[in-house]
């Protein structure tokens, strides 16, 4: 415990010193001649155009939100895949006794050599677990796909078509009252 603490403290001190020392030395040594070019934000050597706090198009957010949901669902596949992979191997009737006990230990998260020939997972049981797991994931994934298809069908993933629709609406409204034309984001259309 104390050993670890000493390491931590050493790291923290070393880190702080390594950052602070060059800054301090630089401050003491360098001449102080500020010019507007020096104070400007560095952007690849080009003069900056406007503030970096610009708004992104709302469709970025929609796609990002949908991505979060469908991305995180994958978390449920990991434990499933571990078990499914193990049992499909075990479902093979040609496995040797040693391989079977070895795989069973791995699957049940036991110390190697704990299971014996009697307590190892039999091929028929493994097959049963595999089929159940397969049915589970089919239902889970099926429901997920319905949601995905729904989002797709509603056009929430459709970048280009959303633009076309927006332009259409804009044109239709523009015909109705030309003085009140909604703004179409020309930057993104180009």
């Amino acid at each position, binding site marked *: 415990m104390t050993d670890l603490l000493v390491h931590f403290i050493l790291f923290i001190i070393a880190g702080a010193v390594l950052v602070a020392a060059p800054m301090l030395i630089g401050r003491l040594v360098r001449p102080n001649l500020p010019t507007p070019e020096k104070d400007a934000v560095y952007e690849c050597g080009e003069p900056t155009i406007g503030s970096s706090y610009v708004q992104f198009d709302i469709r970025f957010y929609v796609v990002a939100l949908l991505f979060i949901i469908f991305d995180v669902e994958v978390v449920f596949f990991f434990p499933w895949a571990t078990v499914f992979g193990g049992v499909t191997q075990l479902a093979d009737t040609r496995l040797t006794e040693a391989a079977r006990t070895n795989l069973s230990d791995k699957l049940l998260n036991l110390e190697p050599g704990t299971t014996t020939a009697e307590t190892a*997972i*039999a091929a028929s049981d493994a097959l049963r677990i595999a089929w159940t797991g397969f049915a589970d994931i089919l239902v889970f994934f099926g*429901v997920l796909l319905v949601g995905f298809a729904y989002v797709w*069908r509603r056009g929430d993933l459709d970048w280009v078509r959303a633009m076309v629709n927006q332009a259409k609406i804009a044109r239709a409204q523009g015909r109705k009252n030309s003085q009140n034309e909604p703004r179409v984001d020309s930057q993104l259309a180009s």
Partner: protein
Amino acid sequence: MSVHSILNHVLGEDLPRSLEVFAPELVLCATVVLLLLWRMLDLHQRIPTCWVALFGSLVAFFGVFAQFMYLKTGGAGVGGLEFLFDQWRLTPSGVGEIGPYFTGLLVHDQFAVFFRLVLTLFLVLVTALTILTGIPDAEDGQDFYTLLIGSTVGMLMAVGANHLLMLFLSIEMMSVPSYVMVAFQKGRKQAGEASLKYVVYGAGIAGVMLYGISLIAGLLGTANMPELGERFAILMQGEFFSMSNTTALTLVLGMMMVLVGLAFKLSLVPFHFWCPDAFEGASAEVCGFLSVASKAAALALLVRFVLAFQGTHESLAQLGILFGIALGTISIITMTFGNLAAYSQTNLKRLLAYSTIAHAGYMVMAVSAMLVILNSPSSSVGVGQAATCIEGLMYYVAVYLFMNLSAFAIVALLRNETFREDISSYRGIISGSAATKVLCVCLAISFFSLVGMPPFGGFFAKMMIFYSALQAGHAHWFLWIVLGFGALNTVFSLFYYLNVLKAAFISEPEADAAPVEVPGMAGAYVLLVTIPILALGMSSLQGDLTATAKYVAASLFQ
């Protein structure tokens, strides 16, 4: 136990039983998927999605009803019941058997089935109301009903929670869709704000609650709720519960965090901020849903959670009394605050929100009384009296469903005509059409019942809860103080309800206002949900419900 026997148990016995008990929820899940497919395949132009949602919730309701009757009659159904039992394939070893299912994640007992019955009935009624008021239009109906049904599935799981994971999962499942439902009225500025406040508070409190759950589960080494009390007693082995014991202190902290989460869902003071704002911004139909369904589910969860820490050990009894008195104090503050704040309201939905807060206070009083009775060292009170508390609670929830739904339905239906929700817009509406007159009378009935006037259901509900507090007073004098405050509050609350009724019945209509003409269907619907208030107060139905509640309550303490 070998893998073979575990597998045989899980797939051969547990799974069929679980699916049998869980069938109504599965029907609701299938309805959600069907709603999305329905819209995708453009079938909504032939049959609107709202009818699909109504059909799905009706099927689920009959599923739970069959389970309820099966448990009550012991499987000996006659006539129509027999048919229902056959349709749902109910078996003695499945629905007929009380106990945990899904390998202990959920529990099937009379208490859970009673609350599931209340919730599915409520889902059917709310769906019918939204069809009547047309809150979701044809284009986004499936979105609204998906959220509504999804939230209800969360609540159905909440009332049967038997594992700390399910506690958190169900709270989140019922909250997340309701955040979105509050914001559902597109383009209304207030809806966005109401929802933002609700989601910011709700998400924060959910995080705190999860941290509490992680502490409890970790320190006690199990997340299975029935084992918590036992583990707690083992951990406290021999030594009395004291503040110098850090493990005990951490555990109590964790429990308090979980109770904070539940108090937020019940909108108990000081975790009520969201409630008036969310109610004012949301549509009245959603308010009705939030005020009844999410409260009923959170209440059932609260009962389950505090009962998880019951046992014969000394430290558990001390803990129980401590929490009982804490809940009693919160109950006093909540009902007093709710009733006082309701006075100055000009918006009817906001007024009803504060009334909801006050009613949550009354309901928590029953839980507090139950805890004190169960853990009292004196022998004058016991499990029988504790069952009376739960009985009162369930009766209250059943009556509260109809009272609040009726009130919010009237607000929603009148909004469709007058486009206003402030109390001054109710002036003289009695002079409207026949259906409007029906609405006014129903409003009076539901308000008098909310106050607790004698012939209505609300009166008996309040009496039962007050009686249980009176009984608990024998165990600890503090409950008599709670009871005193409850009685005082009942008198207070009369005036602000009367204020609205005075506007509707006695005041002259505003000079430029046209008489309100509510469609006949609206009158019929409101009458349908108001009659049970009368029936639960005056007819033999009251006796039936009391007997049912008694039977359910007794089963909880077996």
